[in-house]
């Protein structure tokens, strides 16, 4: 009995000890953002004087060259359609790739899945030229379409796996009652798949928000930059104002963290469902 207690104590001590490696840096960022710079000269871990102020957050939000507030508003304008569109378009394609007969259907599906491996740099130059010719540079529509296209391989893989867990009998019964394929899809398949759609939405929202490269090459009007694009602009070349930079970082990461906190169950299922059937 004593030995089991000892073992349990050791496991817990080890787990929390290792956990500190993740806890301390996040506390450090929070301390650096919340306390005035004068208190931090000898490190944020000195607590001889301790004042909390939101100055750094206000400075980052209204920064003269790269206001994070504006960046967060811009990111939201991009990310919401860039989540809804790929999920609807991808769900339709995933459903057809699972249920409808078509020659070469499975090779087509595998090709789409394989596209997940391609780095964004592979399309950067031609995509830039193509969108410039369409007048879609410095345009959120262009960025949203790019996010949509690049989300599709994963959304299709994930939702096809998800749809394959639905019993086909329900769809067959509806078909006998005279429902068309699109009706069956929107009235039966989608409502039955809400948890799967929530998973896909949680992950896609995070990825679109966290994206930097596509925004970097497609948006360069200073007023239109999304939140992630403004972080490097706040990092001076030689002198770094850690207070403002960490406050801006916290503001930028707050949205994906909020999504994760609210949709944790779906988020993790999405991540696991992508990999295991």
């Amino acid at each position: 009995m004593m030995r089991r207690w000892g073992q349990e104590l050791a496991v817990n001590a080890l787990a929390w000890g290792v956990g500190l490696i993740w806890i301390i840096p996040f506390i450090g960022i929070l301390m650096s953002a919340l306390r005035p710079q004068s208190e931090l000269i000898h490190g944020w871990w000195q607590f001889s004087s301790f004042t909390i102020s939101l100055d750094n957050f206000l400075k980052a939000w209204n920064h003269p060259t790269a206001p994070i507030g504006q960046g967060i508003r811009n990111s939201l304008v991009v990310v919401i359609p860039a989540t809804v569109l790929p999920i609807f378009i991808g769900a339709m394609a995933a459903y057809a790739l699972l249920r409808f007969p078509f020659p070469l259907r499975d090779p087509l599906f595998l090709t789409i899945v394989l596209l997940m491996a391609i780095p964004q740099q592979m399309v950067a130059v031609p995509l830039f030229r193509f969108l410039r010719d369409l007048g879609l540079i410095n345009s959120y529509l262009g960025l949203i379409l790019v996010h949509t296209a690049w989300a599709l391989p994963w959304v299709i893989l994930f939702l096809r796996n998800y749809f394959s867990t639905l019993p086909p009998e329900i769809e067959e019964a509806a078909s006998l009652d005279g429902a068309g394929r699109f009706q069956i899809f929107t009235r039966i398949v989608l409502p039955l798949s809400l948890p799967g759609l929530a998973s896909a939405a949680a992950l896609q929202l995070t990825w679109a928000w966290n994206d930097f490269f596509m925004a970097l090459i497609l948006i360069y009007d200073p007023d239109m930059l999304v939140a992630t694009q403004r972080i490097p602009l706040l990092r001076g070349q030689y002198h770094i104002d850690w207070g403002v930079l960490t406050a801006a970082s916290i503001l930028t990461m707050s949205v994906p963290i909020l999504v994760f906190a609210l949709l944790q169950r779906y988020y993790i299922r999405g991540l696991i469902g992508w990999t295991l059937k």
Partner: protein
Amino acid sequence: MSAWRWGKRIGRWGSFLGFTAPALLLILFFIILPALQTIALSFTDREGAFVGLRNFAQVLSDPDTFNLTGFPPGPPPWGSIVHNAVWILLHLPLTVGLGLILAVLLDRARGATFLKSIIFLGMVTPMIVGGVIIRFLFDENAGVVTAILRAVGLTELGRSWTAYPETALPALILGSVWLWVGFSMILYSAGLATIPRDYYEAAAVDGAGPLQQFWYITIPSLRPVTMVIVAMTVLWELKIFDIVYTATLGGPGGATMVLALQMYFYAFRALEFHRAATVATLLTLFTLIVGLWFVRTTRSSE
């Protein structure tokens, strides 16, 4: 075949095409066609003339890409391909090993849900912020890592890691393990939950100790999860961009230059599109090898 049967078949194909057309068109115009154009750029020169593998020979013999003159013991820069390779060699075993240890450890600790969420925050964080965090941790004045190293007497390592070629790449790699390990931990946790408890009970009855159980039951059962983690992690390491962009911009003196960032500099700073396309094509070649391996192994195990 009668016209009626053909008509029926075309009707069925029609609904397939109707459902998939929006997705296929977007994928075609925003992924496949531009990727093919990039391949075309990598085989041509400014005048559009076909030059065979000349661009590749140039890129691969460029010290930006490949420069082993100073390879260990000398400090970086060793060239972007070598930096990506070193990244994989260090980051992959650390991520897989630490993820497994954390998953097993947190399987039975109190407050595991909280600790897992904190560790997983690194994955949720935008990687552009991840680069800021790395720089912050390894900063001479603000960083807790350098402060601890100074406190234990390692004063040489007490300076800003990202400012010196010897330490910039190690800082980024260690930081990227810190950011990414939540991914392997979460997948291993899910994998552990699928192993039936009876296996362990049966093994215990047969006299197997905890280490033997771990080696003969846990490790083999986690094989499929491990494949997924390895494939996704190598792809992530090859595509690494944002972290380097905020932490060092490839510096100092190219000591942290990686393929994805090199491509960006060639294309959007130097406006050398053919050279940039060649780097991108090389990078894609590496990622496709990983992707094909993954698709093949997961399909053959089904």
